[in-house]
């Protein structure tokens, strides 16, 4: 009864009002054989014991606070300005539900509206939803959206081999019950835009690419966009929103749907979640958009205010004909992103993106000066790049660990053929000293 306030006396009085003699009686409807099982759980702890137990578990991890880390591959270590946790932890934001009652939810509603605006500004799209689960599921929803927009008449989905492999896996899981045909994903990761264009046919609903792609590369998708538009299909682009501060927005390549992982926008690593799915599109496709949407309106006195709108797309109204089954989304994460983008603003976001760019390029330059470490590919990149190593990336990582470094992502985890490729992420959190130390150790372990 830690958080249940009523005392035995209170409960007595309540039972009397109800007209039963015990709380147990309220459960008479439950089949006796299964009623009141003895759960085999640890004995209850007090708050201070729980805090201590959790602290011990947390100490069972090694984090970027103890080790230098160069791991990215879809989740990045960025600085979270102190104002973010201070604001998102305010109870009025944290403990509210989805804003079904707009008169007492204008705080949530306006902040989502502003989030939508900033996502549109970043991506060049016209409308953004209020958030989706994460990068992978936003890509899967983009596939569904493309189906809706093309009226389920086109069945081919071209997936770039440069997509995050976890995104591809998720798309496949979601599509298990569908009759879609997926192509492209199993081509070599060095496949160019031209080869992808060759896969586009009249039956193509969507070409889904990533920008920068999983391997860090910046690719110009303009021709691809033109090709798919020529067959009345759509171009979907999964983005790293931070990169968009300094690189052309996907709208300029003709993107119809922009999705992606919003974690870089002020959201802590937290061992993989909760993160933020970005999902935005052009105005004409708004009715195919999954998830909640906030719109501006007026109250009965003509005062500007906000409401959830176009709910007819959603499960609670449209049931089996809804655009998606999503209900709870990533409210706190969207709020974090909005606060992050407000704090950094136009110039700050550009500056941080540039910091990432510069540090990553410095690191790449220095690493490839070492004998045995080679540049992989020649595409421009943002804050992540692949290096061909003198031996398997997994062995190098093991060695780095003994030096207190958590190395890059071992691409052998994606494909055995790439087991000598390591992908390094370098962000504003990696100091020059850290990079130099990495370089020294890489040299050392290559010997």
């Amino acid at each position, binding site marked *: 009864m830690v958080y249940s306030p009523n005392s035995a006396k209170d409960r007595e009085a309540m039972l009397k009002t109800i007209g039963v003699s015990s709380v147990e009686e309220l459960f008479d409807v439950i089949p006796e054989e299964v009623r009141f099982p003895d759960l085999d759980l640890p004995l209850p702890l007090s*708050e201070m014991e729980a805090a201590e137990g959790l602290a011990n578990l947390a100490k069972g991890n090694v984090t970027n606070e103890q080790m230098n880390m160069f791991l990215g591959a879809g989740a990045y270590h960025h600085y979270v300005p102190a104002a973010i946790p201070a604001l998102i932890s305010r109870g009025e934001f944290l403990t509210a539900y989805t804003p079904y009652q707009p008169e007492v939810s204008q705080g949530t509603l306006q902040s989502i509206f502003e989030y939508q605006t900033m996502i549109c500004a970043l991506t060049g799209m016209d409308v953004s939803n209020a958030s989706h689960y994460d990068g992978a599921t936003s890509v899967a929803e983009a596939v569904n959206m493309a189906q809706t927009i093309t009226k389920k008449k086109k069945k081919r989905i071209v997936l770039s081999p440069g997509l995050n492999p976890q995104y591809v896996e*998720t798309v496949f899981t979601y599509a298990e019950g569908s009759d879609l045909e997926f192509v492209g994903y199993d081509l070599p990761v060095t496949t160019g835009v031209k080869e992808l264009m060759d896969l586009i046919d009249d039956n193509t609903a969507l070409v889904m690419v990533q920008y920068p792609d999983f391997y860090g590369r910046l690719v110009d998708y303009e021709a691809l966009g033109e090709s798919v538009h020529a067959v009345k299909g759509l171009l979907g682009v999964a983005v790293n929103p931070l990169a968009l501060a300094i690189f052309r927005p996907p709208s300029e390549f003709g993107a119809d749907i922009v999705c992606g992982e919003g974690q870089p926008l002020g959201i802590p690593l937290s061992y993989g979640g909760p993160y933020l799915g970005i999902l935005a599109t052009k105005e004409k496709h708004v009715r195919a958009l999954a998830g909640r949407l906030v719109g501006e309106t007026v109250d009965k006195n003509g005062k500007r205010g906000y409401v959830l709108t176009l709910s007819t797309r959603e499960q609670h109204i449209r049931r089996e004909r809804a655009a998606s089954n999503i209900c709870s989304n990533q409210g706190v994460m969207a709020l974090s992103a909005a606060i992050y983008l407000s704090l950094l603003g136009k110039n700050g976001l550009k500056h941080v993106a540039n910091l990432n760019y510069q540090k990553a390029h410095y690191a790449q330059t220095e690493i490839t000066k070492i004998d045995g470490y080679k540049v992989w590919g020649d595409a421009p990149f943002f804050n992540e790049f692949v290096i061909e190593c003198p031996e398997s990336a997994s062995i190098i990582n093991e060695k780095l660990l003994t030096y207190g470094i958590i190395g890059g992502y071992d691409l052998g985890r994606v494909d055995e053929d790439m087991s000598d490729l390591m992908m390094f992420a370098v962000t504003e959190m990696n100091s020059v000293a850290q990079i130099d130390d990495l370089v020294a150790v890489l040299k050392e372990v290559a010997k």
Partner: protein
Amino acid sequence: MIEPTIYEISSEGRKGVSYPNVDVPRTKLPKEFLRTELNLPEVAEVDVVRHYTRLSSMNYAIDNGFYPLGSCTMKYNPRINEKTAAMSGFQNSHPLQPDETVQGNLALMHMLQEMLAEIGGFAGVTLQPAAGAHGELTGVLIMNAYHKKNGDSQRVKVLIPDSAHGTNPATSAMSGLKPVEIPSDERGNIDLEALRAECDDTLAGLMLTNPNTLGLFDENVQAVIQTVHDAGGLVYGDGANMNALLGIARPGDLGIDILHYNLHKTFSTPHGGGGPGSGPVGVAEHLVNFLPGPIVEILEEGYDDIPPLYGLVTPKDSIGRMKSFHGHFGVMVRAFTYILIHGAEGLRDVSMNAVLNANYLMALVKDTYKVAYPRTCMHEFVVEGRWKDAPDVHALDIAKRLIDYGFHPPTNYFPLIVHEALMIEPTETENKETLDAFADALIKIAKEAHETPMLLHAAPSTTQFGRLDEVQAAKQLVLCCRLFPEVE
């Protein structure tokens, strides 16, 4: 006063946080990718803090008062959960770190899997799903995979009671199965006859919410499950209502094959104005191999002082991955903390108090509001927000008027099978005085509905905002800040 948008308070050259300068030799940015414009606000930290502080004060949340939003289990969110989730060892670990560097996280996840399995009566649990609906999708995909594996690919029909939450039919549709609605009977149970009629060899399964969205425990639940099983179908349980059943009855013991948990309801993690949630899925023995991967397993047992070695493993017949990485780890930490603090005894107390509170509140208002299905309820109940002799008054008016009395309204117009539904879930964390005050308000409002209905139609009148025009919002879509607006 209206709160301007963050764009409206933007002014060129301001910024809200400082970053270090570039301290490495500079590399040119690739010209062909260079971005020119970027329309983000420019404001100082003080502007941001004030803006969001003021916005927050325009919200009503659990921390402000009673929030009896049916089906949403708006229980108090203990602050210790926030403290543990923010621990640096958790917050700063990367999801792709080598397993040996994240044994703390893996141990926590493994224990949580086991605890949830024990609470629900299941053989295996995945923590990956991001929310309830995502858990549903996981569950239905497992159902589908199971039948396919058995060579039963004709099994495409999913039965869904008419009282079900909208995510149930949406989920079945999304997974390529065919939803079929089953009516409820006059006691709010699933209509057994109707159910039997649909139980043929195209049956994939039933999506069962029990207690259902009327707050009622199905009196024939065993027969229902048996019927589906007999026809070769599986029973999926929507666990959004688990707050009635902790230590009371295990869905697995009832024969339910698959169930999702809403950590953000039953296990007290905050809703955050929409999310994040977390929707782990538990399954019976015969479905364990279909769970999405990875899940956490013990790779080497511990002994003496040596802890076990945990690792991430993908089950043999896994339906695949439902999302990036391992699920909403930060939410798991909160739920784990909550379970640790309660133990078996504490969890049963949670459900007992939740059900007691709901029945008490129902007893207080049942003479004034028609209870849709008048029998002992579980953690929530549904009344009709209408009276023959007050024809202009609707459930919505009652909901809005409650705001004037300082309460968050209940869920309205759901479940769909009750006219002018008001779905009331008090949760166990509210005290008797609050329930009394809420009942008082409801009773006063009933009186007003008959005597001074304008009060209801004009409600809310004590808030900063009056009723908002939803029609205009949907007609003249404005989904982004106007970039050069005139501020009033």
